[in-house]
């Protein structure tokens, strides 16, 4: 018989991968999770952009610098980034209102009634879910229509 070794246990935490890679973990009927990931990503993007934004607006004090900066806007990559940023703000703001209602005021998640078959969780089938679909719909429409206006302004078509 082989010598017994000291057992080692495996830390099996999913980490960031479990947050963003859909095939690491599958949860059915859970668009709230999609919104959670998007809210996080857009929040991070906005926070990274915040100092840039302050720096950029501070340039308006010096008209020459401002003119130089506006040249940057001719860069297609910068134009595309602007559109991504625009979408982020719209989603983060709209979903943020939903989260404030749900998380801060406990609205839209139903009441804790005694469960009945088929034991559907109330919070995932209450008004909150409707708000979520509305957030997705309004966001996509505003983002796409805004994109068309923006890119036309930029002379893409």
């Amino acid at each position, binding site marked *: 018989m082989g010598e*017994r*070794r*000291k*057992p*080692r*246990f*495996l*830390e*099996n*935490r*999913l*980490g*960031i991968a*479990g*947050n963003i890679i859909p*095939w*690491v*973990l*599958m*949860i*059915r*009927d*859970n668009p*709230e*999770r999609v919104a*959670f*990931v998007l*809210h*996080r990503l857009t929040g991070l993007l906005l926070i990274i952009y915040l100092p840039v934004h302050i720096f950029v607006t501070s340039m308006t004090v010096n008209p020459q610098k401002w003119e130089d900066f506006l040249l940057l806007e001719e860069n297609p990559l910068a134009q595309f980034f602007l559109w991504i940023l625009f979408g982020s703000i719209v989603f983060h703001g709209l979903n943020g209102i939903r*989260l404030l209602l*749900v*998380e*801060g*005021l*406990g609205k839209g*998640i*139903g009441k*804790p*009634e*005694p*469960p009945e078959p*088929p*034991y*559907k*969780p*109330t*919070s*995932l089938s209450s008004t909150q879910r409707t708000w979520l679909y509305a957030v997705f719909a309004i966001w996509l429409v505003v983002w796409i229509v805004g994109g068309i206006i923006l890119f036309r302004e930029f002379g893409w078509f």
Partner: protein
Amino acid sequence: MGVNGNGRPATRVVKIRVRRYDPETGRRWWQEYRVEAKKGTTVLDALLRIKAEQDHTLAMRYSCRMGACGSCGMLINKMPRLACETQLLDLGTDTVTIEPLPNFPVLRDLITDFGDFFKKHRDIMPYIVRESKKENEEPYREYYMPPDELNKIIRFSYCIMCGLCYAACPVVAIDKKFLGPQALGQAYRWVTDVRDEGLRLRLEKVDDKHGVWRCHFAGSCSAACPKGVDPAQGIQLLRSKLVALTAGARREKKPTHVATPTTVRYVDVGDAPKPTVEDKSLLVKHLEETAQELEQDLPYVAQALRDYLRTITSS
């Protein structure tokens, strides 16, 4: 091979891929088995058959086989599920992958360590806490709880501590100290209980950056729960309760008092049956004697009998 009602073969051979782990060598590998599945064959049935007929080294945990004990949580086709409540053919795939529940340390193969998980549950004090020390240490009677109050918490009482919500939670995945959906859902269950006075004590753990504020309502806990407990709802209600308390918009609930046998008549159960002892004085005499006998050893029971005596003699 027979054919069932909808024209599909009644039995089918399913390939089962199990993610195994050996704690002594630290080796982790996928192993494949084949089992015949028919309608009703659960993942747990398949694993037990593999263990009995093909490979006795395969380790898993189970107990009740009927979704009541919460021991058999696993990652089945990447979904946190109870093995005993998941049928192989329902999954609809030719290969079924089975892994240990994530976010729990793996001890061997499909067996995970629930130590942290249970500790977090204990941390929120999952029992009635009263302000009076005497009441906590020497409880002597049941507490008063109207049925509509029970209905407010009963959903959370169905928790079987299977840990599926904990495995599903994206925040538990990145924060080891986060109390997690099970414990927080139960924290809501206990602070909402009219018999409880432990809100302030529980806040020590709950009102913390690893507590209720860490939740971002991804809702995966509720989507994964096999019992319809809806921990996500509990957490949002708990958090909004804290928000309201902090803002002074709501006051703490008043807990109920210790019940006396007379108050327990809250539910209307219709008229009492006709007394079998026609002569009330006999019953009264008997109760008085019994109360006297019990005075020394069981004073509370004696008191209860006297309370009851009073109700029958006053009517």
